[in-house]
């Protein structure tokens, strides 16, 4: 029994979802779009050409963002995977997991404000390394919690089985655990990559504005009221995750519930 209004609502939903993306792209091609015009005064490649022509440093920001997010994603995924194993086999596992939740739920920007003193102290302030470390502190607990569900009795019995059959821990890890965890590693990498890719507050504090990731640029353009460049940086910010999502989507929710 199909109700006839459904297709309309579905079309509306698709339009609503598509709208921001289309709007951002169009805005990034526009310029001198003054109220109350419905259409911009200029439409073309101008913004993209000037910006990718490097003078505003947007291309550079894109590269910095990629470097930071890849590092944060990889390091936190792998360390999260390894350490979550130790946590699972620990007898106080519940308490340990609880600890991981503290930095995870605290607003990163507040965390950053209270941490900045220590970052200054150890010379990790205002540089890319510092930002990577700071974002890692937020992404790592996520990874830890995320892999909490991977380790269970079944996995343990696999490990025991390999050990009984004479496998070394090394073999267990590379031949058994890694293949089993492959899809989870992928999602976790994707998620931690995004945590870093989207992060603004913490980055602005630990990076003191010197590490100009894409999110920092978006804010700068909003401050300048330069909406066209702002839209352009938004495009650079949202399309890489869209591509990743396309390849990754069937995994994203697999282990959340």
């Amino acid at each position, binding site marked *: 029994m199909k109700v006839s209004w459904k297709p309309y609502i579905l079309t509306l939903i698709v339009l609503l979802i598509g709208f921001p993306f289309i709007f951002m792209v169009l805005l990034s091609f526009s310029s001198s779009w003054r109220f109350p015009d419905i259409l911009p005064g200029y439409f073309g490649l101008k913004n993209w050409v000037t910006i990718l022509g490097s*003078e505003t440093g947007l291309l550079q920001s894109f590269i910095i963002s990629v470097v930071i997010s890849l590092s944060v994603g990889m390091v936190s995924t792998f360390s999260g995977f390894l350490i979550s194993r130790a946590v699972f086999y620990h007898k106080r596992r519940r308490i340990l997991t609880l600890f991981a939740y503290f930095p995870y739920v605290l607003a990163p920007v507040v965390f950053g404000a209270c941490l900045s003193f220590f970052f200054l102290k*150890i*010379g990790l*302030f205002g540089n890319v390394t510092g930002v990577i470390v700071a974002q890692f502190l937020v992404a790592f607990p996520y990874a830890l919690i995320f892999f909490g569900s991977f380790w269970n009795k079944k996995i343990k019995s696999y490990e025991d089985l390999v050990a009984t059959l004479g496998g070394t821990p090394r073999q267990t890890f590379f031949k058994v655990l890694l293949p089993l965890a492959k899809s989870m590693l992928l999602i976790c990498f994707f998620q931690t990559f995004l945590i870093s890719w989207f992060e603004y507050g913490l980055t602005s504090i630990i990076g*003191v504005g010197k590490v100009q990731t894409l999110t920092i640029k978006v804010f*700068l353009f909003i*401050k300048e009221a330069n909406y066209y460049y702002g839209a352009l940086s938004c495009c650079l910010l949202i399309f890489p995750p869209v591509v990743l999502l396309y390849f990754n989507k069937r995994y994203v929710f697999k282990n959340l519930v």
Partner: protein
Amino acid sequence: MLLISCNSEPKMDDSGLKAASWEEISAKAKGTAVNMMMWQGSPVINNYMNNYVVPQLKEKYNIDLKISGGQGPEIVQLAMGEKEAGITSGQVDIVWINGETSFQLRKIDGLWGPFIEQLPNIKYIDLDDRYINTDFQQPIAGMECPWSIGQAAMVYDSAKVANPPRNLNELETYVKKYPGTFTIGNDFSGMTQLKSFLAELGGSPNNLNGDFSEEKYNRLSKQLWEYLNRNKKYFWKEGETFPKEQTKMSQLFANGELYLNFGFSEGGIEEKVVSGLYPETARSYPWENGTIKNTNYMGILQNAPQKAGAMQVIDFLISPAAQFEKSHANGMDSNTILEIDSLPKEWAEKFTNAPHRKYGLEMEDLKEYAIEEPAPEYMIRLYEDFRTQVIEK
């Protein structure tokens, strides 16, 4: 825990720099990477810095100037944080500041100097001018190098308002006649506007000169808050909120939501009209009891790792070429800090023959309406109290 060591470059001999000749400083500055922290809310200033100053410095002195965003409180916070953590080689070399920031930086001994006497181009700046050598009632004492000078002015749209208000009484009548078209920025320029209101309530343009007076501040600010609270229901958004950025105010004015605005650089409308942001009917005009005229400065932080490089950069910023570029009426349109008469002839001519403003007033026109910056405490208190007494009420 690691100790303080990660970025411990060999420490510059700072006292040596103060005695060094300019040639030595210049040689030391070559090839350095200098970090500068400044307010980045203005596209024209950003454009000037990114597309003129940075490439010029690279070409002329092989200096890499890196600019990061941050104004008053952020700069002070950074300097304070570094001091707390005992960092001797800091993140930032040059800061763009004026009164209230340098006041706080001096409180924590954050500025390095005096250094400006050593800059070759300082000879073109009239250091006897009180508007230049006194920053918020404090002598600059060689610790801050003047960069730009300007006077705040009112702006109105002549197509919408025939007779804009020129004093607080007229403003009161105005907001009732044109509700929703006036507001005060909860930012640096808004506070500057409040200071001139405060002086007006005190009865004269120079009422706030001299040291900070608690008694005077309390008395006048009480009247000011009463005035604002009485009238704010006629302000933009019924006075429930106030814009927090100068750019936001400009946008509101450009969109025609506001009929009145307030801005530095004599209203700062020239570039905005030329670029099409403001309507051609926008005009700047003086406020009867006067508006603040002030200078902004470049300072070097106490723990700046590249002090020689910083000096070279600052000297370039006050060079006739850089100042001329900055003063083009169709460019950044900012008054030069240089004294035209003292310049070499060819530069003096260039400045004199440069195109004049078509829409905005010149600083000269506002001369008799100039008020000195009052002591920094006024600003700091206004920031706090404007929030608690007006915004949150």
